[in-house]
């Protein structure tokens, strides 16, 4: 049987998602998120699991932390040549793993802490981030057998083809401490034999875990392609990550506006001229179909449902912690007693920010639909 890779075919999937944030920025071990996502085992089928962790590399805070997967050594040498040409690599190592019998054939996983070479930036006339996006696109679609799992600062994505708790064990996440964790358990309807396809999807500091299927994928993708994004993975989640990057970084929109684009207000409820304008202008970025997503970046996370809430999403607070999950039970598993628990409406975002930390998650909110603690 020919095992198709993610990207060679589009795979619909159901999923579990979870996120835990300490709003004071205090770091905590990955145990909790593993326990949380593991409790939703029935929502996955062992064909994908992953985590994003923010705050895990304080010693390389200024560098881009690149997580790369290689199918083979050739891919590594090709990629490293390219990296060396474009980056000053401060440190590189294989990502430490723990043997786990329930994790199948794993790719080589490496991590690099790197700064883009100034001369390359000048050559290409790009800012750092644009350059980074270009690099990611280049490696992911240009080098066979290589894949960038994450590329942000002080963060990393750990994902693979197994139940999420096994992935967590494999990557020894109990040994990492982060102030923000997101996790994903996947139920794809096919058997993609490739780790790159698992969630979270990341770009720069963005990571996205996603439960759902985006029927508007074709429209979203063709719109993004006009702006240089190449959706090599053919997965909805990739598109969501790019949409956040496009709207918030490139177009400079706030989170509220971004949410109002991907989960737009219905025309019949549209009172606000600005919202209408956003819809007119970015109508192709409406995410249509069932989804619940958690988008994380260095200074917090935001969760949002599709506008008619076709997928589950619950949120809860306890002290400084914000929990988001597909199921209430998963939150109760790690925090039985909660200050507050609620189920956000369709299109109504839950946003958790880290106090006094500047980052891309800049809500510019009027406070009406923010419902985090």
């Amino acid at each position, binding site marked *: 049987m020919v095992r198709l890779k993610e990207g060679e075919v589009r795979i619909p999937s159901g999923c579990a998602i979870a996120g835990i944030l300490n709003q004071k920025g205090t770091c905590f071990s990955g145990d909790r998120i593993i326990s949380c996502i593991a409790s939703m085992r029935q929502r996955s089928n062992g064909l994908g699991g992953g985590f994003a962790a923010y705050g895990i590399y304080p010693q390389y805070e200024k560098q881009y932390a690149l997580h790369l997967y290689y199918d083979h050594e050739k891919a590594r040498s090709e990629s490293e040549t390219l990296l060396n040409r474009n980056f000053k690599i401060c440190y590189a190592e294989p990502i430490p793993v723990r043997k786990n019998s329930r994790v199948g054939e794993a790719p080589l996983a490496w991590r690099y802490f790197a700064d883009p070479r100034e001369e390359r930036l000048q050559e290409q006339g790009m800012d750092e981030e644009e350059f980074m996006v270009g690099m990611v696109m280049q490696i992911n679609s240009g080098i066979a057998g290589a894949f960038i799992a994450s590329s942000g600062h002080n963060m990393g994505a750990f994902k693979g083809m197994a139940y999420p708790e096994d992935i967590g064990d494999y990557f020894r996440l109990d040994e990492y401490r982060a102030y923000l964790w997101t996790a994903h358990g996947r139920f794809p309807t096919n058997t993609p034999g490739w780790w790159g396809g698992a969630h979270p999807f990341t770009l720069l500091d963005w990571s996205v875990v996603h439960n759902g*299927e985006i029927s508007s*994928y074709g429209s979203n993708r063709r719109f993004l392609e006009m702006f240089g994004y190449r959706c090599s993975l053919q997965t909805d989640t990739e598109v969501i990550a790019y949409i956040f990057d496009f709207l918030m970084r490139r177009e400079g929109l706030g989170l509220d506006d971004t949410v109002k684009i991907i989960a737009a207000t219905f025309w019949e409820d549209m009172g606000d001229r600005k919202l209408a304008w956003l819809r007119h202008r970015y109508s192709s970025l*409406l995410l249509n179909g069932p989804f619940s997503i958690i988008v994380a970046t260095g200074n917090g996370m935001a969760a949002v449902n599709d506008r008619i809430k076709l997928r589950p999403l619950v949120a809860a607070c306890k002290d400084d912690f914000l929990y988001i999950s597909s199921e209430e039970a998963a939150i109760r598993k790690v925090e039985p007693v909660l200050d507050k628990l609620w189920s956000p409406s369709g299109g109504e975002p839950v946003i958790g920010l880290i106090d006094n930390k500047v980052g891309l998650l800049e809500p510019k909110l009027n406070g009406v639909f923010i419902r985090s603690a």
Partner: protein
Amino acid sequence: MALTMLAPVFKVEREESRCIKCGVCVQQCANEVHHLDNGWMWTNDEECVACQRCVSLCPAQALAIKEYPLSFRVNSHWTPATIREIYAQADSGGVLLAGMGNPRSYKSYFDHLLLNASQVTNPSIDPLREPMELNTSLGNKTGSSELSEKPLISLRLPIMFSAMSFGSVSLNVHKSLSRAAYAMGTLWNTGEGGLHPDLFSYKDNAVVQVASGRFGVHPAYLENSAVIEIKIGQGAKPGIGGHLPGAKVSEEVARTRMIPAWSDAISPAPHHDIYSIEDLAQLIETLKVATGYKKPIAVKVAAVHNISAIASGVVRAGADILAIDGFRGATGAAPMRIRDHVGIPIEIALAQVDSRLRDEGIRQQVSLVAAGGIRNSADVVKAIALGADAVYIATAALIALGCHLCQMCFTGKCNWGIATTRPDLSRRLNPEVGAKRAQNLLQAWEHEIKEIMGAMGINAIDSLRGNRLMLRGIGLGPEELKILGVKAAGEEG
């Protein structure tokens, strides 16, 4: 004149045992096919165009129209139609005229595209329970904020009535379509025949055309509109001008067009102030200045071989809306050879143009309107998935009003009161009825589109636009699939 060799094309069959000699057929046939002489009914089959008016109105169901049983020896190269055309030209020495759209059996790409639906992994949506948005906005969407927003037109559904000039069609057609457009929150199009003052009240739903003849163009015309459309060409006759015979230029038509009554109204083939793309840019800018940058400017072109390059040029010339009319687009009158042999299908042109504009990164500057042979809501959905923002319908709208596609619009003797300005005939289209029927058609299509979208799990038409993953080709070759940008049926992804 010597003997004509043209035999009748149709034969009127009257079932004598049913005919009650009421004379309705006699009274209704503008072609004077039926006659009642002293209780004897007879027909002049030569004049019959198979418009079916008599059949529809006969209270005794006594009439049937059949093909005239004239058998030439079978010859698949020299078909009966070919032979007849030669007879006709040998009789008249003239160009063959034809009405409505290309009737030939070219491949219809719409019929080779299949739509997708949701199963299990994502839920289909029930349009009766959940909101289902067909709202569509047309115009340049590159404004940097709501304050710098370029003029946009919002439609309730992505279907508009295409250009048909007053003169080529009756005022009652315009009244019907304008009222239906108003009721359905969409646009209708004046065509190049000017805007009758009675219809100024429908200005918010009117697309007014500026065409090569400049008929009826004056400040109030431009002002009383939602969109101004520069017509470069139309699908039925790319590269050809228009000719409204003097007989159709009634006083009312003349006043509206600002030309002398009963004189021929000739639209030149080109605009004589547009000999190149930069001239178009000037005209676009002129119209924008004239209307205070408050209205989107549309440009309508026929789908020809290098349509994508033309489209790119038109967008860069400042058009906010680009309407592309495929080779099945209809007309009141066109030389038959042009109608049947010039241009390319709208599906191909649309796919090509959408891809090209995206490649060039200028797709956001313009809204694409597909026209020419859209027959039903599935065609609409397919056109939008191929990349259109909206579609224009005209033939379908006329059929809704009663057109039976006899294709004899240019005679001015339309028995259904559509393609005529004769008061006794145009009276046959009661705008109350026409508006209701046209509105019903749009409503029906709206429901169907919602059903289709719901099945796809999509609740806003925005998410269908250019979403070619929702299409699969069937019976198409690799080259055609590539041009259309769709995968073959059975192909995953």
